[in-house]
Protein backbone atom coordinates (compact mmCIF):
# COMPACT_ATOMS: atom_id res chain seq x y z
CA UNK A 1 0.00 0.00 0.00
CA UNK A 2 1.37 3.41 -0.93
CA UNK A 3 2.09 6.31 1.38
CA UNK A 4 -0.68 8.68 2.34
CA UNK A 5 1.21 11.94 1.91
CA UNK A 6 -1.71 14.06 3.06
CA UNK A 7 -1.83 12.22 6.38
CA UNK A 8 1.96 12.31 6.73
CA UNK A 9 2.00 16.08 6.24
CA UNK A 10 0.03 16.52 9.45
CA UNK A 11 3.04 15.21 11.39
CA UNK A 12 5.27 18.01 10.09
CA UNK A 13 4.75 21.38 11.79
CA UNK A 14 6.12 23.38 8.88
CA UNK A 15 3.66 21.76 6.48
CA UNK A 16 0.74 22.37 8.82
CA UNK A 17 1.03 26.15 8.54
CA UNK A 18 -1.35 28.08 6.27
CA UNK A 19 1.58 29.48 4.29
CA UNK A 20 3.42 26.15 4.09
CA UNK A 21 5.98 26.06 1.30
CA UNK A 22 6.13 23.45 -1.42
CA UNK A 23 9.31 21.94 -0.09
CA UNK A 24 11.29 20.18 -2.84
CA UNK A 25 14.84 20.32 -1.48
CA UNK A 26 14.82 17.01 0.35
CA UNK A 27 18.12 15.88 -1.15
CA UNK A 28 19.72 18.62 0.91
CA UNK A 29 17.64 18.43 4.07
CA UNK A 30 14.43 16.70 4.98
CA UNK A 31 11.79 18.31 7.20
CA UNK A 32 11.33 17.01 10.72
CA UNK A 33 8.21 15.31 12.08
CA UNK A 34 6.84 16.46 15.40
CA UNK A 35 8.09 13.32 17.15
CA UNK A 36 11.68 14.21 16.24
CA UNK A 37 11.32 17.80 17.38
CA UNK A 38 9.75 16.65 20.64
CA UNK A 39 12.50 14.12 21.27
CA UNK A 40 15.16 16.81 20.85
CA UNK A 41 13.24 19.19 23.12
CA UNK A 42 12.68 16.45 25.70
CA UNK A 43 16.43 15.92 26.02
CA UNK A 44 16.99 19.59 26.79
CA UNK A 45 14.00 19.84 29.11
CA UNK A 46 14.37 16.59 31.03
CA UNK A 47 17.90 15.16 30.78
CA UNK A 48 20.33 17.80 29.49
CA UNK A 49 23.29 15.82 30.85
CA UNK A 50 26.53 14.18 29.77
CA UNK A 51 26.49 10.50 28.92
CA UNK A 52 28.96 8.02 30.29
CA UNK A 53 30.70 10.30 32.76
CA UNK A 54 28.51 10.48 35.84
CA UNK A 55 26.62 8.11 38.10
CA UNK A 56 23.43 10.10 38.50
CA UNK A 57 20.39 8.54 36.91
CA UNK A 58 19.75 11.19 34.27
CA UNK A 59 23.23 10.69 32.89
CA UNK A 60 22.62 6.97 32.58
CA UNK A 61 19.37 7.66 30.72
CA UNK A 62 21.27 9.78 28.20
CA UNK A 63 23.80 7.02 27.64
CA UNK A 64 21.03 4.48 27.23
CA UNK A 65 19.37 6.68 24.64
CA UNK A 66 22.62 7.17 22.74
CA UNK A 67 23.17 3.42 22.56
CA UNK A 68 19.53 2.84 21.66
CA UNK A 69 19.96 5.24 18.75
CA UNK A 70 23.10 3.40 17.68
CA UNK A 71 21.35 0.03 17.80
CA UNK A 72 18.33 1.40 15.94
CA UNK A 73 20.44 2.96 13.21
CA UNK A 74 22.56 -0.16 12.77
CA UNK A 75 19.48 -2.36 12.64
CA UNK A 76 17.72 0.01 10.23
CA UNK A 77 20.61 -0.10 7.77
CA UNK A 78 21.77 -3.70 8.20
CA UNK A 79 24.90 -2.81 10.16
CA UNK A 80 26.27 -3.81 13.54
CA UNK A 81 26.12 -1.51 16.58
CA UNK A 82 29.66 -2.28 17.70
CA UNK A 83 31.02 -0.96 14.40
CA UNK A 84 28.57 1.93 13.93
CA UNK A 85 30.42 5.16 14.69
CA UNK A 86 28.54 8.39 15.25
CA UNK A 87 29.84 11.41 13.37
CA UNK A 88 28.33 14.80 12.70
CA UNK A 89 27.35 13.89 9.14
CA UNK A 90 28.26 11.67 6.18
CA UNK A 91 31.05 14.05 5.21
CA UNK A 92 32.79 13.51 8.53
CA UNK A 93 32.25 9.77 8.24
CA UNK A 94 34.03 9.76 4.88
CA UNK A 95 36.81 11.95 6.23
CA UNK A 96 37.23 9.53 9.13
CA UNK A 97 38.09 6.76 6.67
CA UNK A 98 40.28 9.06 4.58
CA UNK A 99 42.33 10.07 7.61
CA UNK A 100 42.34 6.80 9.56
CA UNK A 101 42.88 4.18 6.86
CA UNK A 102 46.42 2.72 6.99
CA UNK A 103 47.46 4.01 3.57
CA UNK A 104 50.65 2.95 1.83
CA UNK A 105 52.39 5.17 -0.69
CA UNK A 106 51.19 4.17 -4.14
CA UNK A 107 47.72 3.15 -2.99
CA UNK A 108 44.92 4.19 -5.33
CA UNK A 109 41.39 5.36 -4.46
CA UNK A 110 38.81 5.05 -7.21
CA UNK A 111 35.59 7.06 -7.36
CA UNK A 112 32.81 7.46 -9.88
CA UNK A 113 32.61 10.60 -12.00
CA UNK A 114 29.53 11.92 -10.15
CA UNK A 115 30.68 12.29 -6.59
CA UNK A 116 29.53 14.95 -4.15
CA UNK A 117 32.51 17.06 -3.08
CA UNK A 118 32.36 15.21 0.23
CA UNK A 119 33.31 11.95 -1.47
CA UNK A 120 35.82 13.55 -3.80
CA UNK A 121 37.92 16.14 -2.02
CA UNK A 122 38.97 13.91 0.93
CA UNK A 123 40.56 11.49 -1.55
CA UNK A 124 42.20 14.27 -3.55
CA UNK A 125 43.75 15.55 -0.31
CA UNK A 126 45.52 12.21 0.18
CA UNK A 127 48.02 13.03 -2.56
CA UNK A 128 50.24 14.51 0.17
CA UNK A 129 50.45 11.00 1.66
CA UNK A 130 51.38 9.39 -1.65
CA UNK A 131 47.86 8.12 -2.37
CA UNK A 132 46.49 8.65 -5.87
CA UNK A 133 42.85 9.37 -6.64
CA UNK A 134 41.38 8.34 -9.98
CA UNK A 135 37.94 8.68 -11.53
CA UNK A 136 36.34 5.82 -13.45
CA UNK A 137 34.16 7.34 -16.19
CA UNK A 138 30.51 6.37 -16.45
CA UNK A 139 28.78 5.43 -19.69
CA UNK A 140 27.42 8.19 -21.87
CA UNK A 141 23.97 7.82 -20.30
CA UNK A 142 25.36 8.38 -16.80
CA UNK A 143 25.15 4.77 -15.61
CA UNK A 144 28.08 2.94 -14.07
CA UNK A 145 30.33 1.13 -16.57
CA UNK A 146 31.14 -2.06 -14.66
CA UNK A 147 33.51 -3.32 -17.36
CA UNK A 148 35.58 -0.15 -16.98
CA UNK A 149 35.64 -0.74 -13.22
CA UNK A 150 36.69 -4.37 -13.72
CA UNK A 151 39.51 -3.33 -16.06
CA UNK A 152 40.81 -0.64 -13.73
CA UNK A 153 40.62 -2.79 -10.61
CA UNK A 154 42.52 -5.58 -12.36
CA UNK A 155 45.74 -3.58 -12.12
CA UNK A 156 45.87 -4.53 -8.46
CA UNK A 157 46.88 -1.19 -6.96
CA UNK A 158 43.48 -0.06 -5.66
CA UNK A 159 43.10 0.10 -1.89
CA UNK A 160 39.64 1.64 -1.77
CA UNK A 161 36.65 2.14 -4.01
CA UNK A 162 34.62 5.14 -2.79
CA UNK A 163 31.33 5.48 -4.63
CA UNK A 164 28.08 7.30 -4.19
CA UNK A 165 25.27 4.80 -3.63
CA UNK A 166 22.46 7.09 -4.80
CA UNK A 167 23.53 10.28 -6.54
CA UNK A 168 22.52 13.67 -5.20
CA UNK A 169 22.54 14.88 -8.79
CA UNK A 170 19.70 12.75 -10.12
CA UNK A 171 18.92 9.93 -7.68
CA UNK A 172 20.69 7.39 -9.87
CA UNK A 173 21.45 4.22 -7.89
CA UNK A 174 24.70 2.47 -8.69
CA UNK A 175 24.81 -1.37 -8.76
CA UNK A 176 26.48 -1.49 -5.35
CA UNK A 177 26.56 -5.27 -4.91
CA UNK A 178 28.29 -5.77 -8.23
CA UNK A 179 30.74 -3.00 -7.40
CA UNK A 180 31.44 -4.57 -4.00
CA UNK A 181 32.16 -7.92 -5.63
CA UNK A 182 34.57 -6.35 -8.12
CA UNK A 183 36.34 -4.34 -5.41
CA UNK A 184 36.72 -7.33 -3.12
CA UNK A 185 37.98 -9.56 -5.94
CA UNK A 186 40.72 -6.98 -6.47
CA UNK A 187 41.56 -6.84 -2.76
CA UNK A 188 40.10 -3.36 -2.30
CA UNK A 189 37.61 -2.17 0.27
CA UNK A 190 34.34 -0.47 -0.70
CA UNK A 191 33.04 2.73 0.85
CA UNK A 192 29.56 3.83 -0.15
CA UNK A 193 28.34 7.38 0.33
CA UNK A 194 24.82 6.57 1.44
CA UNK A 195 23.70 10.11 2.29
CA UNK A 196 20.90 9.99 -0.29
CA UNK A 197 20.27 6.25 -0.40
CA UNK A 198 19.50 5.86 3.30
CA UNK A 199 16.79 8.49 3.06
CA UNK A 200 15.01 7.27 -0.01
CA UNK A 201 14.77 3.49 0.20
CA UNK A 202 15.66 0.36 2.12
CA UNK A 203 19.37 -0.18 2.68
CA UNK A 204 21.05 -3.35 3.92
CA UNK A 205 24.74 -2.62 4.25
CA UNK A 206 25.65 -6.26 4.90
CA UNK A 207 23.76 -7.43 1.83
CA UNK A 208 25.36 -4.73 -0.30
CA UNK A 209 28.80 -5.89 0.78
CA UNK A 210 30.05 -2.42 1.69
CA UNK A 211 32.99 -2.22 4.07
CA UNK A 212 32.09 1.35 4.98
CA UNK A 213 28.76 3.14 4.65
CA UNK A 214 28.32 6.85 5.42
CA UNK A 215 24.98 8.47 6.27
CA UNK A 216 23.54 11.80 7.45
CA UNK A 217 20.48 11.78 9.69
CA UNK A 218 19.40 15.25 8.57
CA UNK A 219 18.41 13.69 5.24
CA UNK A 220 16.46 10.96 7.08
CA UNK A 221 13.92 13.21 8.86
CA UNK A 222 16.38 13.50 11.75
CA UNK A 223 18.14 16.44 13.35
CA UNK A 224 21.13 18.23 11.91
CA UNK A 225 24.55 17.36 13.29
CA UNK A 226 24.21 13.58 13.40
CA UNK A 227 25.75 11.18 10.92
CA UNK A 228 27.34 7.78 11.10
CA UNK A 229 29.91 5.49 9.62
CA UNK A 230 28.69 1.91 9.50
CA UNK A 231 31.50 -0.55 8.95
CA UNK A 232 32.21 -4.23 9.05
CA UNK A 233 34.07 -5.24 12.23
CA UNK A 234 37.12 -6.03 10.14
CA UNK A 235 37.06 -2.71 8.31
CA UNK A 236 36.58 -0.61 11.44
CA UNK A 237 39.40 -2.50 13.19
CA UNK A 238 41.72 -1.52 10.34
CA UNK A 239 41.24 2.19 11.03
CA UNK A 240 43.69 4.08 13.19
CA UNK A 241 42.61 6.93 15.44
CA UNK A 242 40.98 9.99 13.89
CA UNK A 243 40.09 12.57 16.53
CA UNK A 244 41.10 11.66 20.05
CA UNK A 245 40.41 12.99 23.52
CA UNK A 246 37.73 12.51 26.13
CA UNK A 247 35.70 9.30 25.79
CA UNK A 248 38.14 7.73 23.31
CA UNK A 249 40.58 6.39 25.89
CA UNK A 250 40.59 3.63 28.51
CA UNK A 251 43.54 5.06 30.43
CA UNK A 252 46.08 7.85 30.17
CA UNK A 253 49.38 8.76 31.83
CA UNK A 254 51.47 11.86 31.25
CA UNK A 255 53.33 9.92 28.59
CA UNK A 256 50.77 7.68 26.92
CA UNK A 257 47.16 6.74 26.33
CA UNK A 258 45.34 3.50 25.69
CA UNK A 259 42.56 3.90 23.18
CA UNK A 260 39.21 2.19 23.52
CA UNK A 261 37.86 -0.07 20.81
CA UNK A 262 35.39 1.16 18.19
CA UNK A 263 33.01 2.86 18.19
CA UNK A 264 34.15 4.85 21.26
CA UNK A 265 37.66 5.12 19.84
CA UNK A 266 36.36 7.52 17.21
CA UNK A 267 33.79 9.50 19.21
CA UNK A 268 35.89 12.18 20.87
CA UNK A 269 34.40 14.64 23.32
CA UNK A 270 30.83 15.32 24.32
CA UNK A 271 28.42 14.07 21.70
CA UNK A 272 25.19 15.35 20.17
CA UNK A 273 22.87 13.71 22.71
CA UNK A 274 19.85 15.76 21.69
CA UNK A 275 20.58 14.75 18.11
CA UNK A 276 20.71 11.07 19.04
CA UNK A 277 17.33 11.35 20.75
CA UNK A 278 15.90 12.95 17.63
CA UNK A 279 17.62 10.39 15.40
CA UNK A 280 16.02 7.54 17.30
CA UNK A 281 12.62 9.15 16.77
CA UNK A 282 13.36 9.68 13.08
CA UNK A 283 14.31 6.05 12.55
CA UNK A 284 11.17 4.91 14.35
CA UNK A 285 9.13 7.23 12.12
CA UNK A 286 10.76 5.94 8.92
CA UNK A 287 10.21 2.35 10.05
CA UNK A 288 6.52 3.06 10.49
CA UNK A 289 6.32 4.52 6.99
CA UNK A 290 8.20 1.60 5.45
CA UNK A 291 11.22 2.26 3.29
CA UNK A 292 9.91 0.33 0.28
CA UNK A 293 6.90 2.63 0.36
CA UNK A 294 9.13 5.70 0.75
CA UNK A 295 11.13 4.62 -2.29
CA UNK A 296 8.08 3.92 -4.43
CA UNK A 297 6.50 7.25 -3.46
CA UNK A 298 9.61 9.27 -4.28
CA UNK A 299 10.15 7.48 -7.56
CA UNK A 300 6.54 8.02 -8.64
CA UNK A 301 6.75 11.75 -7.91
CA UNK A 302 10.10 12.01 -9.70
CA UNK A 303 8.72 10.28 -12.79
CA UNK A 304 5.58 12.40 -12.78
CA UNK A 305 7.59 15.62 -12.50
CA UNK A 306 10.18 14.51 -15.05
CA UNK A 307 7.54 13.58 -17.61
CA UNK A 308 5.81 16.90 -17.11
CA UNK A 309 9.03 18.87 -17.36
CA UNK A 310 10.01 17.07 -20.56
CA UNK A 311 7.26 19.01 -22.29
CA UNK A 312 8.38 22.42 -21.06
CA UNK A 313 10.20 24.57 -23.61
CA UNK A 314 13.55 25.99 -22.54
CA UNK A 315 14.77 23.21 -20.30
CA UNK A 316 16.31 19.79 -20.58
CA UNK A 317 16.38 17.03 -18.04
CA UNK A 318 19.79 16.09 -16.71
CA UNK A 319 20.97 12.72 -15.48
CA UNK A 320 20.77 8.99 -15.95
CA UNK A 321 17.74 7.12 -17.39
CA UNK A 322 14.64 7.56 -15.24
CA UNK A 323 14.31 3.84 -14.60
CA UNK A 324 17.59 3.83 -12.66
CA UNK A 325 16.69 6.78 -10.46
CA UNK A 326 14.96 7.74 -7.25
CA UNK A 327 13.27 10.86 -5.96
CA UNK A 328 15.42 13.54 -7.61
CA UNK A 329 14.81 15.46 -10.85
CA UNK A 330 17.40 17.96 -12.06
CA UNK A 331 17.04 20.10 -15.15
CA UNK A 332 19.24 22.59 -16.95
CA UNK A 333 17.93 25.74 -18.59
CA UNK A 334 18.69 26.77 -22.14
CA UNK A 335 18.47 30.55 -21.79
CA UNK A 336 17.90 31.30 -18.12
CA UNK A 337 20.00 31.17 -15.01
CA UNK A 338 19.03 28.37 -12.58
CA UNK A 339 19.12 30.77 -9.61
CA UNK A 340 16.72 33.12 -11.38
CA UNK A 341 14.19 30.34 -11.83
CA UNK A 342 14.67 29.14 -8.25
CA UNK A 343 14.10 32.63 -6.85
CA UNK A 344 10.98 33.08 -8.97
CA UNK A 345 9.63 29.67 -7.98
CA UNK A 346 9.86 30.79 -4.36
CA UNK A 347 8.66 34.35 -4.86
CA UNK A 348 5.69 33.47 -7.04
CA UNK A 349 4.70 29.98 -5.90
CA UNK A 350 6.42 29.28 -2.55
CA UNK A 351 8.23 26.36 -4.21
CA UNK A 352 11.63 25.71 -2.64
CA UNK A 353 14.14 24.00 -4.91
CA UNK A 354 17.91 23.87 -5.13
CA UNK A 355 19.82 25.65 -7.89
CA UNK A 356 23.47 25.66 -8.85
CA UNK A 357 26.06 22.91 -8.93
CA UNK A 358 24.73 20.90 -5.96
CA UNK A 359 28.24 20.31 -4.53
CA UNK A 360 28.95 18.41 -7.75
CA UNK A 361 31.09 21.04 -9.41
CA UNK A 362 33.36 18.39 -10.91
CA UNK A 363 30.49 16.77 -12.80
CA UNK A 364 29.08 20.09 -14.03
CA UNK A 365 32.53 21.27 -15.11
CA UNK A 366 33.26 18.03 -16.95
CA UNK A 367 29.91 18.10 -18.74
CA UNK A 368 30.01 21.85 -19.43
CA UNK A 369 26.57 22.33 -17.84
CA UNK A 370 26.24 25.76 -16.18
CA UNK A 371 24.30 24.55 -13.18
CA UNK A 372 20.84 23.07 -12.86
CA UNK A 373 17.62 23.37 -10.92
CA UNK A 374 16.97 20.32 -8.76
CA UNK A 375 13.70 19.19 -7.23
CA UNK A 376 13.86 16.33 -4.75
CA UNK A 377 10.89 14.68 -3.10
CA UNK A 378 10.17 13.40 0.39
CA UNK A 379 7.44 11.21 1.86
CA UNK A 380 5.23 14.25 2.55
CA UNK A 381 5.24 15.58 -1.01
CA UNK A 382 2.18 15.12 -3.16
CA UNK A 383 1.30 14.72 -6.82
CA UNK A 384 -0.30 18.17 -6.62
CA UNK A 385 3.08 19.61 -5.66
CA UNK A 386 4.87 17.75 -8.47
CA UNK A 387 2.35 19.13 -10.95
CA UNK A 388 2.66 22.63 -9.49
CA UNK A 389 6.42 22.50 -10.03
CA UNK A 390 5.87 21.66 -13.70
CA UNK A 391 3.27 24.33 -14.33
CA UNK A 392 5.07 27.02 -12.36
CA UNK A 393 8.30 26.30 -14.21
CA UNK A 394 6.49 26.41 -17.53
CA UNK A 395 4.87 29.73 -16.71
CA UNK A 396 8.05 31.40 -15.51
CA UNK A 397 10.13 30.21 -18.45
CA UNK A 398 7.47 31.49 -20.84
CA UNK A 399 7.56 34.90 -19.15
CA UNK A 400 11.35 34.98 -19.30
CA UNK A 401 11.35 33.94 -22.96
CA UNK A 402 8.87 36.68 -23.82
CA UNK A 403 11.34 39.34 -22.65
CA UNK A 404 14.17 38.20 -24.91
Amino acid at each position, binding site marked *: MGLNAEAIRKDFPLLSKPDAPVYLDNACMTLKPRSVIEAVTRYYEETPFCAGRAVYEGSLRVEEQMEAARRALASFLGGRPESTVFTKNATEAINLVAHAHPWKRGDVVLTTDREHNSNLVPWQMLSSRGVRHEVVPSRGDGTLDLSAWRDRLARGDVALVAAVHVSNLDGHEVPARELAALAHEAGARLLLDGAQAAAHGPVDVARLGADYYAVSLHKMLGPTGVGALLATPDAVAALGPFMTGGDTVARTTYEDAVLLDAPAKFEAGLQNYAGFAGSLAAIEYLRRLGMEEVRAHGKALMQRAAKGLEGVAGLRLVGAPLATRGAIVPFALEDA*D*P*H*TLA*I*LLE*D*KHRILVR*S*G*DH*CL*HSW*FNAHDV*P*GAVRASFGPYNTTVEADLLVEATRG*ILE*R*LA*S*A*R
Partner: protein
Amino acid sequence: MAAPDYSVLELCKNRAGYEAVPRLRLKLKLADVERDLQDAGFEPLANAGIVLVVRWEDVELSVFESGKLLFKTREMDKARVAMAAFKGAMGWA
Protein backbone atom coordinates in the same frame (compact mmCIF):
# COMPACT_ATOMS: atom_id res chain seq x y z
CA MET B 1 9.91 54.16 0.82
CA ALA B 2 12.32 53.61 3.71
CA ALA B 3 15.64 52.01 2.88
CA PRO B 4 15.21 48.25 3.29
CA ASP B 5 17.65 46.24 5.35
CA TYR B 6 19.42 43.70 3.18
CA SER B 7 21.11 40.55 4.38
CA VAL B 8 24.82 40.25 3.86
CA LEU B 9 25.69 39.31 0.32
CA GLU B 10 25.96 35.57 0.15
CA LEU B 11 27.91 33.53 -2.27
CA CYS B 12 25.76 31.38 -4.48
CA LYS B 13 27.47 28.03 -4.56
CA ASN B 14 28.21 28.11 -8.24
CA ARG B 15 29.37 30.40 -10.97
CA ALA B 16 26.46 32.83 -10.72
CA GLY B 17 27.86 35.03 -8.02
CA TYR B 18 26.10 36.64 -5.10
CA GLU B 19 22.58 37.03 -3.81
CA ALA B 20 21.23 39.77 -1.57
CA VAL B 21 17.91 39.28 0.17
CA PRO B 22 15.93 42.02 1.96
CA ARG B 23 15.05 41.05 5.49
CA LEU B 24 11.46 42.05 4.79
CA ARG B 25 9.96 41.12 1.45
CA LEU B 26 9.38 44.11 -0.84
CA LYS B 27 6.88 44.70 -3.62
CA LEU B 28 8.87 46.52 -6.24
CA LYS B 29 7.34 47.82 -9.45
CA LEU B 30 9.97 46.73 -11.90
CA ALA B 31 8.95 49.28 -14.55
CA ASP B 32 9.66 52.07 -12.05
CA VAL B 33 12.86 50.38 -10.90
CA GLU B 34 14.01 50.07 -14.49
CA ARG B 35 13.48 53.79 -15.06
CA ASP B 36 15.33 54.74 -11.88
CA LEU B 37 18.22 52.45 -12.64
CA GLN B 38 18.48 53.66 -16.21
CA ASP B 39 18.55 57.27 -14.98
CA ALA B 40 21.44 56.31 -12.70
CA GLY B 41 23.47 54.80 -15.50
CA PHE B 42 22.51 51.14 -15.35
CA GLU B 43 22.17 49.50 -18.75
CA PRO B 44 18.80 47.69 -19.09
CA LEU B 45 19.14 44.22 -20.62
CA ALA B 46 15.69 42.67 -20.19
CA ASN B 47 12.47 43.18 -18.26
CA ALA B 48 10.18 40.18 -18.09
CA GLY B 49 7.84 41.86 -15.64
CA ILE B 50 8.80 39.35 -12.96
CA VAL B 51 12.52 40.00 -13.12
CA LEU B 52 14.53 42.93 -14.41
CA VAL B 53 18.06 42.39 -15.70
CA VAL B 54 20.45 45.34 -15.89
CA ARG B 55 24.19 45.83 -16.13
CA TRP B 56 26.43 47.98 -13.96
CA GLU B 57 29.99 48.10 -15.30
CA ASP B 58 30.69 44.40 -15.99
CA VAL B 59 28.25 43.04 -13.41
CA GLU B 60 24.88 41.71 -14.53
CA LEU B 61 22.24 42.34 -11.88
CA SER B 62 18.85 40.68 -11.69
CA VAL B 63 16.21 42.54 -9.67
CA PHE B 64 13.13 40.66 -8.49
CA GLU B 65 9.79 42.11 -7.40
CA SER B 66 10.44 40.74 -3.91
CA GLY B 67 13.55 42.91 -3.72
CA LYS B 68 15.95 40.01 -4.04
CA LEU B 69 19.05 40.76 -6.05
CA LEU B 70 21.32 38.43 -7.99
CA PHE B 71 24.77 39.68 -8.96
CA LYS B 72 26.54 37.76 -11.70
CA THR B 73 30.18 38.19 -10.84
CA ARG B 74 32.68 36.03 -9.07
CA GLU B 75 34.26 39.05 -7.39
CA MET B 76 32.60 40.16 -4.20
CA ASP B 77 34.06 43.66 -4.43
CA LYS B 78 32.36 44.17 -7.79
CA ALA B 79 29.10 42.91 -6.33
CA ARG B 80 29.43 45.38 -3.45
CA VAL B 81 30.06 48.25 -5.85
CA ALA B 82 27.00 47.29 -7.91
CA MET B 83 24.96 46.95 -4.72
CA ALA B 84 25.99 50.44 -3.64
CA ALA B 85 25.09 51.81 -7.06
CA PHE B 86 21.72 50.05 -6.91
CA LYS B 87 20.93 51.46 -3.46
CA GLY B 88 21.96 54.89 -4.64
CA ALA B 89 19.72 54.67 -7.70
CA MET B 90 16.80 53.57 -5.54
CA GLY B 91 17.33 56.41 -3.06
CA TRP B 92 18.27 53.93 -0.33
CA ALA B 93 21.89 54.98 0.13
